[in-house]
């Protein structure tokens, strides 16, 4: 079982990396992109625990370490392999 965790900047938080990537895309001719926001993708693997327990662990990990509550939001999905 896996947790797929997505961490992104909150709306309204400036994302200089996303802006730079957007400019780069524009400069190589890829147009019509309104904005680019960059974030993090984290995978976590579990063995021998329930889906609910995996969700609890992923949520606690995000709250305590993986995301900065001041600037970031997180979401995750638990997938069975």
């Amino acid at each position, binding site marked *: 079982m896996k947790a797929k965790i997505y961490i992104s900047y909150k709306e309204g*938080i*400036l994302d*200089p*990396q996303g802006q*730079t990537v957007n400019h780069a895309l524009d400069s190589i001719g890829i147009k019509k992109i309104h904005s680019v926001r960059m974030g993090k993708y984290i995978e976590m693997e579990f063995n021998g625990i329930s889906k609910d327990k995996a969700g609890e662990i992923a949520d606690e990990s995000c709250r305590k*370490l*993986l995301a*900065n509550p*001041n*600037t970031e939001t997180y979401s995750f999905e638990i997938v069975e392999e």
Partner: protein
Amino acid sequence: MKAAVIVFPGSNCDHDAYHVFRHILDVSVDFVWHKEKEVGKYDLILIPGGFSYGDYLRTGAIARFSPVMESVIVEAKKGKPVFGICNGFQILIESGLLPGSLIINEHVRFLSQNVTLEVENSDSMYTKSLMKGQKLTMPIAHKQGNFIADEETLNQIEGEGQVAFRYTDSEDGNPNGSMNRIAGILNNDKNVLGMMPHPERAAESLLGSQDGLQIFTSILGTA
């Protein structure tokens, strides 16, 4: 007076800070490895610059959970001086001792250059030998020093006199894009200071500036 310089894996300004205490100011100082659990015997705790844990995840995010930080937080809450420089500032923010966040610089570059700071609050233990508006020159060397905070937090920081230093109000005065040109902030009780610029690298004339030394002499009461 006994000072502690906390050392994390990846700290690289620890020796600079130690040098200022020991060789310039003749103050007793120890390196304290991050696995130590107790810093209560020290009168001043300095968290140095560097790249603790390789800046993995977010700057300061992993160092914040090093064993020593529990005791640093306890001592800070008792009112002991805790001073974070650069990565030390990032760690103090991650540990919740200072408000706001430090995100990637506005122009997404690592900046290594001298900056001019203005003293905003000259009443704190770190700035009492300085004057409001006094200009100080010292280097910055960081990629994540762009200070941001939500409106409520920013109003509180400004309203409570928690801004210690600002970058100057000039065209190239705020190189990382920080809100309100904030370069260094105090906690509400004014015993914790975090700043992105490096006063320990501007503490003797041989290195081009002695302006940073005045922050150290303020804390030590030897100004």
